């Protein structure tokens, strides 16, 4: 009772608010207390060596990975938990599903539904949440595929598409529910080098349209070009964060320098 709800409620100005996020997997601490605040319309690139916890942090934002302690809020609403009598309790699955519709997620391995055409993949979330009737959902899906430059491949099955095309369909699918925040988990890591560009171009366009993006990536050049906030994570903590002109071009920490030296 002594802890008012307001203590947990995030400032409404932040699109994503992360406080004291901690998470362990069988004794190994992956997130060791992360605090991060991302403004609406911002493009954040999270950098870090593998095993640093960056993917776990991203997946915690839509509660695919529940936190052990701390909280994450999107648009001022706690994600996956609610506060009752001064403690955070996990929400019912239905409530979590509703929250996830506000957060788009694009995985490294695309995870398109293999038995559905590109169009049906994009229409699926609209139909599942009864946002639109079948005809209308197909029209919306076609429009979204047009946005990622794939309107002509609407009837193709994922296996008939290149990796870059699959990832663009996955982005269109993530956009279908008009999420407030889009999360990208190493969106180009599974792609042939020549296909990376087309996916980055789509993400860049989203950034220019004013979407709030959080991207885990190794594409330093892309981060410098598109991000307005770069976060370097190692050992489950934020080592350094700031605009790319500082974190990437003039890093303050030895660990950041070392990492960037290896990636570049």
């Amino acid at each position, binding site marked *: 009772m002594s802890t008012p709800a307001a203590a947990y409620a995030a400032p409404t100005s932040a699109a994503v608010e992360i406080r004291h996020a901690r998470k362990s997997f069988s004794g190994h601490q992956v997130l060791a207390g992360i605090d991060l605040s991302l403004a609406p319309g911002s493009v954040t690139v999270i950098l870090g060596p593998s095993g640093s916890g960056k993917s776990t942090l991203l997946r915690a934002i*839509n509660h695919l990975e529940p936190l052990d302690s701390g909280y994450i809020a999107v648009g001022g609403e706690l994600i996956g938990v609610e506060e009752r009598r001064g403690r955070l309790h996990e929400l019912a699955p239905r409530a979590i*599903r509703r*929250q996830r519709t506000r957060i788009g997620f694009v*995985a490294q*391995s695309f*995870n398109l539904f293999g038995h559905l055409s590109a169009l049906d993949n994009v229409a*699926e979330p609209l139909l599942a949440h009864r946002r639109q009737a079948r005809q209308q959902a197909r029209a919306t899906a076609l429009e979204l595929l047009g946005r990622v430059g794939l309107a002509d491949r609407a009837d193709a*099955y994922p296996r008939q598409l290149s990796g870059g095309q699959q990832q663009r369909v996955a982005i269109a699918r993530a956009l279908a529910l008009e999420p407030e925040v889009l999360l990208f988990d190493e969106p180009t890591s599974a792609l042939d080098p020549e296909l990376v560009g087309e996916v980055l171009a789509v993400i860049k366009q989203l950034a220019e349209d004013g979407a709030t993006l959080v991207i885990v990536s190794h594409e330093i050049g892309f981060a410098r070009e598109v991000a307005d906030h770069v976060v370097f994570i190692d050992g489950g903590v934020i080592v350094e964060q700031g605009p790319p002109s500082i974190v990437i071009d003039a890093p303050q920490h030895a660990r950041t320098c070392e990492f960037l030296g290896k990636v570049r």
Partner: protein
Amino acid sequence: MTATPDVALDQSRALASPSSGPQATTALVAPSEEALRRVVPRRHWGRWAASVLVALLLVSLVTNVAQNPNYQWAQFWGYFTRPVVLRGLLLTLQVTLYAGVLGFVLGVLLALARLSGSGLLNAAAWVYIWFFRSLPLTVLLIITFNVSQFFPTLALKLPLLPALFSTDTPLLLPALAAGVVGLAINEAAYAAELIRGGVLSVDQGQVEAANALGLSPWRRLTRIVGPQALRSIVPGYVNQLIGLVKMSSLVYYVGLADMFTAVYILESRTPNDIVPILLAGSAWYLVIAAVLSVVQFYVERHYARGAVRTLPPTPWQRLRRRLTGLRVRLAEVTR
């Protein structure tokens, strides 16, 4: 056009010249211009020989079936369409259908229990599958038929609570019910493992994508995981169903006159016609299995959508393609 290969040939000769050291590879003897036109595919002589052998065996089999008087083909059609046999066939189909549907539903529930996070559900389903896969089907059928010997009253009762529902078990379950229940209980144990295997074969990323989009568990199962699991479930499941058709002959033990029973009784009455009677009965099982196999082909083809780049052609499509191929070749010859 001709200049390029000449240059290439010159280079290869230069590379292979003796002056290039002891490790020089043997000189390429360039194939002639004539040879460049076409690569002759390898002839598979072993395959040819095997084909000839199989063709000869087939011919001898067909002549044997047609000419061996012991088959008594004259009597075959009489038994094949005999009302007793047809009535038996109807019962066989009925029992198979009911047990198949019931077994599938129960099998899905057991598979879901096995896949669930609950340790108790998982263990209970495991024990069910272990028990009913081990128990001989004949024994199981005799138990379901004589269920009152084991459970004199049927009641729904939870510990520490009065019975919610209670009734005396009928001395004998109606034969059809006993047969169907027995077969379904057995079928479910096998179906559960087939279904579970199919669900496990679906990539975990599909589940994660469904979760990230906020799909409900029901939608995730019926729309995303189920259809993709079916692709690997169907072949094994049709196997299982064909087995069920044949095992349905065990309802003989609960006193049902299925097709096998009808054939069996006919045989004992007219021992001289054993061969045509057996042939007639077997022919019906062959027909049922053939129908199921055709259904399997099309169901499999349906669920292969997206899993293969191009769907395999149906027999009709293949036939049509072969015919047009023949026509083209004929046109070439006659021209």
